């Protein structure tokens, strides 16, 4: 299969003769002179609006309690859990790209890993805020931590709340370390190119005195490799972990043994969708179409398709298992998913994650940024619908018919969820201005290796 002429037939998907200066100009240029200022201002304005909306919703929630949300008997797990799972799942793709593809040495990852790692960080933070707000008395969140206390109590290790805390805290720490350590050489370049004492000092602090000596490189290499090896098992542990949150519940429809891999696939799938969306946005905003090439987008499309099919296998098995078990209540719950009051969520997930996704079989779709972005958006919506379908309908059909009930999210559920995009976007838009969004030194290294000039 020969790539089309516009696509570069190289390991890093970049033109073979791209020079170091060109790479540096494209990556570090925007830190001094941002190419699309008007578009960025719009992005920043939207981000601030959404963030204010989030803060207002959180304030209303803290002032009035969790009763502001739609969850009640019998649906205790509403948007607080479903959006948590959605955001946390999205985070996993960043780690997947940066850590796994680093260890299996795929040079094309170098243009995508920074934006994906930043996405991971913000997605995990968006997710982490949800359980804290859901606690009801968030100021006592430290009760989930194992600390010496006069109550003579440990956290309830059998409770998913404690797992959430450990999962998020370790995942956040490793992601943040991976991001910061991985960017040290780039911060050093930014420091050396910076004008103005403040920028020099701040980038200098982030660069931690990097001089690029052999010893620095050796240390850096082993550190990032160790962190990558820590991060990869975390992807699997954390997303299987929150599939067990559901397994701990008494509801039917949450106990398939497929859940852990099903959730890992879904997590990485939704994450790739956001990475694709961000890659398309970032390459346009920073004007770096030469670094994030159509071949990169093509590869993201393929990954999206592959993980999408893994997720589709999960749907298929989820449809099969209740009948295989023969348990009448399991079947009842499945039929509720398919045709109950919330059936829209199931069919929306199928249409977006299985139906629309198939467009990615065509190269022309994968290589057209606008169309790929539309598919990625559809996947994000579909994955959200999938989380809804997994979490909500089983709770509306309890074992006792007398406890059956419905679920309607309130306006505050929606404002908090929509506002959480502000929590994501505001820092992200600042990263666009102040953080080198592409791992320039790794790209240069890959270019040299490809050309064979050491």
């Amino acid at each position: 299969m020969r790539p089309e002429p516009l696509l570069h037939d190289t390991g890093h998907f970049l033109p073979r003769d791209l020079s170091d200066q060109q790479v540096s100009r494209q990556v570090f240029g925007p830190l001094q002179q941002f190419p699309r200022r008007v578009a960025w201002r719009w992005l920043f304005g939207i981000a601030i609006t959404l963030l204010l909306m989030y803060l207002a919703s959180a304030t209303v929630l803290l002032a009035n309690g969790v009763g502001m949300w739609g969850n009640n008997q019998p649906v205790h797990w509403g948007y607080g859990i479903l959006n948590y799972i959605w955001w946390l799942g999205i985070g996993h793709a960043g780690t997947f790209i940066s850590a796994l593809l680093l260890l299996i040495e795929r040079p094309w990852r170098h243009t995508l890993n920074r934006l994906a790692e930043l996405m991971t960080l913000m997605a995990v933070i968006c997710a982490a805020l949800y359980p804290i707000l859901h606690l009801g008395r968030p100021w006592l969140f430290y009760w989930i931590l194992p600390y010496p206390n006069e109550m003579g109590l440990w956290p309830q290790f059998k409770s998913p709340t404690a797992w959430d805390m450990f999962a998020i805290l370790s995942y956040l720490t490793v992601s943040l370390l991976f991001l910061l350590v991985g960017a040290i050489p780039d911060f050093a370049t930014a420091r050396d190119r910076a004008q103005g004492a403040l920028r020099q000092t701040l980038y200098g602090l982030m660069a931690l005195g990097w001089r690029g000596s052999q010893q620095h490189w050796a240390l850096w290499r082993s550190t990032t490799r160790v962190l990558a090896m820590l991060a990869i098992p975390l992807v699997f542990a954390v997303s299987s972990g929150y599939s067990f949150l559901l397994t701990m519940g008494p509801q039917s429809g949450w106990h398939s043994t497929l859940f852990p891999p099903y959730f890992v696939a879904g997590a990485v799938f939704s994450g790739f969708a956001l990475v694709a969306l961000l890659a398309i946005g970032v390459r346009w905003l920073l004007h770096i179409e030469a670094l994030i090439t159509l071949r990169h987008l093509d590869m993201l499309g393929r990954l999206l398709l592959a993980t999408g099919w893994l997720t589709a296998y999960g749907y298929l098995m989820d449809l099969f298992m209740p009948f295989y078990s023969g348990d009448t209540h399991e079947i009842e719950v499945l039929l509720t998913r398919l045709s109950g009051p919330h059936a829209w969520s199931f069919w929306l997930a199928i249409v977006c994650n299985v139906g629309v996704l198939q467009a990615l079989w065509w190269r022309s779709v994968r290589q057209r940024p606008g169309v790929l972005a539309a598919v990625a958006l559809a996947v994000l919506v579909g994955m959200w619908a999938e989380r809804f379908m997994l979490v909500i309908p089983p709770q509306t059909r309890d074992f006792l018919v007398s406890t059956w009930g419905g679920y309607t999210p309130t306006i505050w559920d929606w404002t908090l969820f929509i506002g959480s995009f502000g929590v994501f976007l505001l820092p992200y838009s600042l990263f666009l201005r102040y953080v080198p969004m592409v791992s320039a030194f790794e790209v240069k290294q890959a270019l040299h290796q490809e050309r064979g000039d050491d």
Partner: protein
Amino acid sequence: MAQIFSRSADTWLRLGLLVLFVGLTGGLLVALALDRSDYRTGRNWVVEQPLPFSHAHHVGELKIDCRYCHSSVESSAMASLPPTETCMTCHSQIWKNADLLEPLRKSLRESQPLHWQRVVELPDYVYFHHGVHVNAGVGCSECHGAVDRMQLMFKAEPLSMGQCLACHRDPAPHLRPAGQVTRLQWHTDQDRRALGEQLMKDRRIDPRGLSDCGICHR
């Protein structure tokens, strides 16, 4: 190119990180220590009362049993405070003109109870039943300390949840034979654990579930 940082910048950065680390862990330790201090828990702090009643005198020297005044301790959740009439069983005969006891006589004259101030107060979300504990053989002094040596009344223990749980998880060494519960200076040469386990068997005390949340938080 000019240097951005001074020669000592690295040292300062490391020092700053060290101070941050020490500050955080030290701050946590200080917070935990303050949380357990007598100032916070009220332990050993005398509470001002309408008249300076001395448990040391009445219990320690005169050997009046706890239940003479706290009469409902064996049957009710509250140990109860004595009505003025209980004091008057003696003080209508002795020290009946003492200035110190004027608030007591005033209380009787005007049929207004004395406003004794609470010394031990558990939060409203804790269910505690005195009768259950006394009948199970938990001595008064397990929680209230050597009341017979207190001139003025104070809390002898912080009575934190940890203390409740320590006993609920392992009650045996805290139990006494019936009849010794109100003996504040009771002492035995027997092994407390062996004795306690025997008592638990005799009284059919089942410690399973004693540390469930719902036992105290109902």
